[in-house]
């Protein structure tokens, strides 16, 4: 039977006017039931019901009921504030578990209100006295309900938002899947807790909870501890695992160490390492070479002028220890390994081997660039050298330089400086032999050595690049070089090198050395000194910043001010709110250069936080500052603030990218480049595309570079625009009428696109979503190349290899296969460029004037001569390369037809939908989600991660292992050019087992 419904609340409202209290109660009771339907009618009588609520004579329950009715009506009227205050009056009648629009919206309101009150209370440091206890009660009821219902994620979210750590803990401990909840909580606290201080509190709590668990997730704990900067905790966990009987625990410890290293927090890693206790039985003489050396001077004295030889020293000590106590011996052995990992040496060595063995760089691209660039144009000439360095970053392959020594020798003065420094990028991470590699160029003993100061300075800078963030063994040498010279070019190189090597160590002695270089008040040395001080003090927020600021006000040199401004910005890296005073001071300065530094300070202090306040401030400066430099930097800085959420950036800067001001457009391009680096994000490419053909040359430059950063490691199968972009680059490079600026951009872009032998990407976040200090700092300094080209090399700091490297207990790379569940073509290397043969043949005949025909014939002859010369020089290079010369004349006529991938691919059948990769393998970021480990494999990963260093558990430990990655680079390195000197014999003889041999040095023929 159809239920009869009332059509009006009139009767009930009339009943409210009755004198008998019981009738009123009845009316209220029924009104409450029907309020959802009749609230418009009731709203006219709200004053009446309000008076009932305020009527002291009424009994409590009834007054609460009245309040509830009023609250509901207000809620429907959209007045949530009044609604909430009456709902509070309703006390327990307000049922948080009710599933209605009213309750949902009011709960949201109540939680918002409570959270904002709590936040305000903590910010002003006042106690939460002014929080309505009734409000608190509601929120608590809500939290309890969530916990009861098993909605732990909700409860955690609310608890974090409301700063109720007690409830947070309860929610976590009472959930069924504590591990899952905890990791969720860590993610949440990184993504949504904007105040650093509070985030630390949350993480502290999480660590506590973790430690109470029966099976703690040590990987996560250590990540938290790293964020909290508590090396003691990490050290004790590692030690516990190392002392364990179970081999798996040891593997886990290694894995933790690798994960920590990935975040590149040098000072922290050193601290952890120092805190690992040494086995009791070990004699003091063992300890010395082994434990990390706080004093680099001592270390240097023991290893003299040789390179760091960590491994040898330690293996010797193990031999002795084994005689004393087997347990301690095992521990000592493990300790050695973990210290090797923590110092970064193991991972650097493996990376180096990987990059060398998998190098797929395309020399033909460089050759094309080289040939099309005018000899006298030094900007493009050095750009080509930069591009080469970037392309081969970390691969130790310097074939191109060796093959073109004549051409290289055209670099003079600063170009020579950067050409030498480029070697540092190529040999990045070649820790063992860095010194011997660079020896020919380094300042020799007394300052009277024959070398040019430019190559000497460059060599010092190169040493810094090689040892970036791992400069234990090289610091002292760089300091000595800095002290013993008064040539500003050498000082410049030494300062940069020292800054890189001692990145973030906050070493006082080094600081003083650099400071004395700064106080010479020479513009060139001072600029580098300023940056270097910042590098040294990264993220320390020390009071050195004010000292630097004072000097920036005193000096007359703009270069020094700029260097210092960036340096100051670096010191507040990641400090978020703590940096606000300094940022305020800088952004209000009279001097535009310091304001410009202020933008960097904002960018770095709030790196990757997507903090709204910082974004708002930057946008404000981007449109309102009077100086173009400041505006450009403000936009660019957005890229740093937003890199944790790359999808946001194109949206935020899209308006700015259409600004009338070319500086703002340039900034927008780089902002997208920085924050979307390596993502290949479609929106980012769409935004950058129009900018690559901007009317202003430097905007084109920025856009090309940014585009390359976004597209790193993508191939045409991923996005067809990659192919278009490659062709565009080639066209710009070959076009004689193109502006130098954009040409330089295109050359650099081709370098970045194929960076590190096509095996690296630009990554600012580690796999655990922590920021990678070195990478961010590297990009920040790189973005300074606007003023100072040699700083381009800093981009190499942000490269991280896209490799899966599985390691066994001995930290060796066993042969091991796993699956990539996607078409191989999606992620394969871009095909090597070839010179078109057929396409130009079918070209329509064009009318040729006799004069131009003559000119052409002349050109052809010249080209052929050149080609012949090249053929002689580069006979060993691939046949495709030699083709270049022959086809040159035709490709010159029709530059447009030069194409990438012109060879049609012949495929026998349909492409397989999966691919079997062999350890170590290239796994690009987009590929990671397709990686699977095989069930029946001999090895199982300790922790499932699709890339990076992964420790493997050997399931058949008795069988002999097959190792890969043992090919020594020396076997394939082509013999050096004519000017090679034979002085390297001794150096190669002492090469340590699998380490790539140092290439032969060469000299400029000036």
């Amino acid at each position, binding site marked *: 039977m159809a239920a*009869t419904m009332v059509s009006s609340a009139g*009767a009930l*409202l*009339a*009943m409210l006017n009755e004198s*008998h209290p019981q*009738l009123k109660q*009845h009316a209220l009771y029924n009104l409450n*039931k029907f309020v959802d339907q009749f609230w418009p009618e009731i709203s006219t009588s709200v004053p009446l019901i309000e008076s009932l609520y305020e009527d002291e004579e009424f009994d409590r329950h009834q007054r609460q009921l009245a309040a509830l009715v009023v609250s509901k009506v207000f809620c429907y009227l959209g007045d949530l504030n009044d609604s909430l205050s009456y709902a509070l009056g309703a006390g327990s009648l307000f049922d948080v578990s009710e599933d209605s629009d009213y309750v949902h919206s009011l709960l949201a309101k109540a939680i918002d209100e409570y959270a904002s009150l709590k936040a305000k209370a903590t910010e002003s440091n006042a106690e939460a006295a002014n929080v309505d206890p009734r409000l608190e009660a509601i929120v608590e009821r809500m939290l309890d309900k969530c916990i009861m219902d098993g909605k732990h994620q909700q409860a955690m979210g609310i608890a974090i938002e409301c700063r109720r750590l007690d409830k947070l803990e309860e929610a976590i401990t009472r959930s069924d899947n504590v591990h899952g909840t905890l990791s969720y909580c860590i993610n949440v606290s990184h993504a949504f807790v904007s105040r650093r201080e509070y985030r630390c509190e949350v993480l502290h709590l999480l660590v506590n909870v973790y430690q109470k668990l029966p099976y703690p997730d040590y990987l996560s704990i250590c990540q938290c501890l790293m964020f909290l900067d508590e090396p003691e905790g990490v050290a004790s966990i590692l030690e516990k695992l190392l002392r364990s009987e179970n081999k798996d625990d040891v593997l886990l410890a290694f894995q933790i160490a690798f994960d920590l290293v990935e975040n590149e927090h040098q000072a922290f890693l050193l601290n952890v390492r120092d805190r690992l206790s040494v086995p009791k039985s070990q004699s003091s003489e063992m300890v010395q070479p082994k434990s990390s050396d706080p004093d680099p001077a001592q270390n240097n004295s023991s290893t003299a002028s040789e390179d760091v030889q960590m491994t040898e020293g330690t293996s010797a000590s193990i031999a002795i220890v084994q005689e004393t106590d087997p347990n301690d011996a095992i521990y000592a052995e493990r300790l050695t390994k973990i210290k090797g990992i923590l110092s970064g040496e193991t991972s650097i060595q493996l990376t180096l081997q990987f990059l060398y063995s998998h190098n797929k760089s395309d020399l033909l691209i460089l050759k094309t660039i080289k040939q099309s660039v005018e000899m006298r144009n030094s900007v493009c000439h050095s750009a080509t050298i930069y591009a080469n360095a970037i392309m081969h970053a970390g691969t130790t392959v310097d074939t191109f330089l060796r093959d073109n020594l004549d051409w290289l020798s055209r670099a003079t003065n600063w170009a020579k400086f950067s050409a030498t420094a480029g070697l540092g990028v190529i040999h990045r991470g070649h820790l063992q032999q860095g010194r011997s590699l660079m020896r020919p160029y380094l300042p020799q003993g007394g300052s009277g050595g024959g070398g040019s100061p430019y190559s000497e300075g460059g060599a010092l800078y190169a040493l810094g690049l090689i040892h970036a963030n791992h400069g234990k063994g090289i610091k002292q040498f760089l300091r000595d070089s800095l002290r013993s010279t008064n040539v500003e070019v050498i000082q410049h190189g030494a300062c940069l090198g020292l800054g890189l090597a001692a990145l973030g160590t906050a070493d006082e002695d080094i600081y003083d050395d650099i400071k004395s270089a700064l106080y010479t008040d020479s513009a060139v040395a001072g600029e580098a000194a300023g940056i270097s001080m910042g590098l040294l003090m990264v993220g320390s927020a020390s009071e050195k910043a004010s000292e630097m600021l004072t000097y920036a006000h005193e000096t007359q040199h703009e270069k020094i001010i700029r260097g210092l401004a960036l340096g100051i910005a670096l010191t507040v890296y990641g400090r978020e709110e703590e940096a606000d005073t300094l940022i305020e001071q800088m952004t209000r300065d009279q001097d535009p250069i310091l304001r410009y530094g202020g933008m960097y300070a904002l960018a770095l202090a709030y790196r990757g936080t997507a903090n709204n306040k910082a974004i708002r401030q930057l946008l404000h400066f981007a449109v309102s500052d009077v100086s173009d430099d400041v505006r450009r930097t403000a936009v660019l800085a957005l890229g740093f603030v937003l890199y944790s959420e790359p999808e946001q950036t194109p949206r935020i800067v899209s308006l700015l990218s259409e600004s009338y001001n070319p500086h703002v457009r340039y900034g927008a391009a780089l902002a997208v480049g920085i924050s979307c680096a390596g993502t290949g994000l479609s929106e980012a490419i769409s935004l950058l595309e129009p900018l690559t053909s901007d009317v202003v040359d430097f905007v084109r430059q920025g856009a090309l570079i940014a585009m390359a950063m976004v597209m790193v490691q993508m191939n045409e199968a991923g996005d067809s625009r990659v192919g278009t972009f490659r062709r565009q680059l080639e066209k710009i490079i070959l076009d004689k009428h193109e502006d130098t600026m954009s040409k330089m951009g295109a050359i650099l872009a081709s370098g970045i696109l194929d960076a590190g032998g096509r095996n690296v990407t630009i990554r600012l976040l580690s796999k655990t979503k922590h920021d990678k200090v070195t990478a961010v700092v590297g990009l920040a300094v790189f973005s300074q190349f606007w003023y100072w080209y040699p700083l381009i090399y800093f981009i190499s700091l942000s490269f991280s290899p896209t490799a899966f490297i599985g390691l066994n207990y001995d930290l060796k790379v066993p042969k091991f296969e796993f699956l990539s569940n996607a078409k191989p073509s999606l992620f394969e290397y871009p095909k090597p460029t070839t010179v078109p043969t057929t396409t130009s043949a079918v070209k329509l005949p064009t009318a040729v004037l006799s004069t131009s025909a003559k000119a052409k014939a002349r050109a052809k002859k010249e080209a052929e001569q050149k080609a012949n010369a090249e053929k002689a020089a580069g006979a060993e290079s691939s046949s495709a390369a030699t083709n270049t010369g022959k086809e040159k004349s035709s490709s010159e006529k029709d530059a447009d037809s030069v194409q990438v991938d012109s060879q049609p691919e012949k495929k026998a059948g349909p492409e397989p939908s999966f691919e079997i990769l062999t350890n170590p393998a290239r796994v690009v970021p987009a590929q990671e989600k397709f990686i699977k480990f095989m069930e029946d494999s001999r090895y199982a990963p300790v922790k499932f991660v699709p890339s990076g260093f992964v420790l493997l558990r050997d399931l058949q430990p008795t069988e002999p292992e097959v190792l890969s990655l043992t090919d020594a680079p020396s076997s394939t390195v082509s013999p050096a050019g004519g000017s090679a000197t034979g002085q390297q014999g001794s150096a190669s003889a002492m090469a340590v087992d699998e380490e790539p041999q140092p290439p032969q040095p060469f000299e400029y023929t000036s």
Partner: protein
Amino acid sequence: MDPKLAEVSQLFERFKAACAREDVDTCCNVLSKLKVLLTGFSSLPPLFEDTPNAIHELTLARDIYEHAVLLSVKIGDQDAFERDFFQLKPYYTDASSSRLPPSSQEYMILGLNLLRLLVQNRIAEFHTELELLSSTALENPCIKHAVELEQSFMEGAYNRVLSAKQTVPCKTYDYFMDLLAKTVRDEIAGCSEKAYGYLSVSDARQMLLFSSDNELLQYIKELLLPVLYESL
């Protein structure tokens, strides 16, 4: 029979008896008790639950409220009338559709309500109520009476309004008809204040439909109409 229902019926009988005796105080007391008792029935609006005794309870409740309305007319309490009428209304509008046979008093009471609105000069609400009525209801003499009155009232044919007192369909209407005369008088007085600079006593008496000068003077004193007072 349900004891609760029996109790209500019993009490209702007492109420009716008291009504017959014109014992107003008893009536009011009993009525208040009755209303409280009625809240105990879930079959009544606004819940309309389908209980076994639903029809019986609904009928009884409707009777009670109808009597309450009539009582309020009797004691001349317009607020009480409004309250009781609104509580009665769901029985007519919502309950009649399903189970409850229509009440014989329905149109009479609706007409009374229309009259009340007219008396209180709430013309907008009057028309709202009118719109809600069906065409058959409009044919009913009680309703028709009120509608005609309103028309005369609007036209300004006040004599027709006053003469309509003789044609009331039911004697309970008298109370409101008297009040209506006063409303009409107020309206006339309000208009004449604007319309005339002065007015002789006899004209005024005729115009305001008073039978004697004394009554007129009394009325003027109550209102203290400035125009009329000057002319005296």
